[in-house]
């Protein structure tokens, strides 16, 4: 039996009833496909486990409080508009509008770093969850291949090792760059791509090692 297709693996996670009987039977017998499906489930679970709301990091509290106070002061000034003479109203209104605008600008300036930091923290948490999910899937496949390595030709094992070295070097570069620039979406994309290639190679070698068949 050949491995499940990509869409069958996703069906196995989303709605197993959509799997054909041979595909379902294969899934119960094949360590590789089971590992893939388990990794997908873990990935989904990790994403679901992410908090819907995050407590802003401690260092943002002061900034938010300061901004809120400034904004509240602005609002108080707005609601305390004198409703007397029209001339006074126009003059006062113009003055207050200018003040409110300045306060808004100040508030935005104060909030921006805090919001950016919070967003970065969310991305870092998501990145760690995704990376852990990939690492688990890689470990599972490496274990399965190690058990069947006698079925592999030395040339295939060398090819595997050489490709893993190439991929691991790229992953290390991306990871180091991420450490210096946490939450960088572009570097996360590089990390994802590296892990996907690693899984591709391990799956391919695993299939030829007879991990399932």
């Amino acid at each position: 039996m050949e491995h499940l297709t990509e869409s069958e693996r996703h069906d196995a996670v989303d709605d197993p009833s959509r799997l054909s009987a041979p595909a379902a039977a294969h899934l119960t017998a094949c360590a590789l496909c089971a590992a893939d499906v388990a990794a997908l489930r873990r990935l989904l679970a990790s994403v679901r486990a992410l908090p819907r709301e995050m407590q802003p990091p401690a260092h943002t509290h002061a900034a938010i409080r300061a901004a809120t106070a400034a904004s509240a002061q602005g609002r108080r000034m707005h609601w305390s508009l004198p409703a007397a003479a029209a001339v006074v109203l126009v003059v006062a209104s113009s003055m207050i509008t200018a003040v409110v605008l300045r306060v808004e600008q100040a508030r935005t300036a104060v909030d921006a770093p805090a919001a950016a930091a919070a967003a970065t923290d969310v991305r870092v948490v998501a990145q760690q969850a995704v990376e852990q999910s990939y690492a688990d899937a890689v470990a599972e496949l490496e274990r399965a291949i190690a058990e069947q390595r006698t079925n592999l030709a030395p040339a295939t094992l060398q090819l595997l090792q050489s490709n893993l070295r190439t991929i691991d070097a790229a992953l290390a570069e991306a990871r180091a760059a991420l450490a210096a620039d946490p939450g960088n979406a572009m570097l996360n994309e590089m990390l994802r791509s590296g892990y996907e290639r690693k899984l591709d190679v391990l799956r391919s070698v695993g299939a030829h090692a007879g991990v399932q068949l």
Partner: protein
Amino acid sequence: VNRVLAILSLAALPGLLAMPAQAQRRVSVQHAIGAGDFVRIHNIAGNVKVTGWDRDSVVATGTVHDTPNERFTVTRAEGGITLGLWDTSVQQATPSVLEVRVPAGAQVYVRTGSSTVFVGSVTGTVDINTVSGMVEVAGTPRDLTVETLSGDVMLDARARVTRARTATGAIRIRGSYADLTATSVSGSITVATPAIERGRFESISGDLRYTGDVARDAVLDFVTHAGAVEFVLPDAPSAEFIVHTYEGELESRFRAPIRYGGGKLKGREMSFTLGQGAARISVRTFKGRVIVRPL
């Protein structure tokens, strides 16, 4: 003494001649199967050629070399047939040559070690997996999956969903695809067709090369860690390029001005529009160089 040796040699000759005959044998099998049934073909080394035809039967002919542990076999099962030879205990198999005719709409699965594979005229699902065998696919498979470790892949097909994966092999793509993903580790990926609606091309260190026109409204994504990305386009392409690179460089030999921006992705973000910008081409590299030039 010489006469005795000569007689002994002559006596041994039939046995010596018979040795290859025992290891090698001709096969010719024919089985009726359903038009959409599966056909699984296994071959360790040598050559496999699969061709779709308009009959509800599988015909396999060729020359096979059985191994000490396994023989060429044909196994019928519900929904299809499996034929071929597979033996993971053999490190260096003697090449077998198989030519297989299958119903055009069959689901074809081919698995080889170093055997080259050609599949043509199949309209059903095609799924090929080799270690080092070269793979070539033509025709109009509905869904196409090709996976090799070090074998080269040549696609010249018209398919809906296509996935081509290799580690060190080179992938060359012609034909027409609604949804195509091609990935490698260090192997190069060369695209030479204007008929891809959605394409994704990824490598770690392999170069990505796109030659020729771009389909209107195509969406193409190129992702590589360290490979070079090169576009060789006709004089008046219509595409919007968005290039993100962490440490790489962009070189465009078109006159369109490059816009430098700070989008959501840090690193260098550059974009430019050629013609009306109908197609959307996204490139992301960690340190790979990006070159866009006219034909």
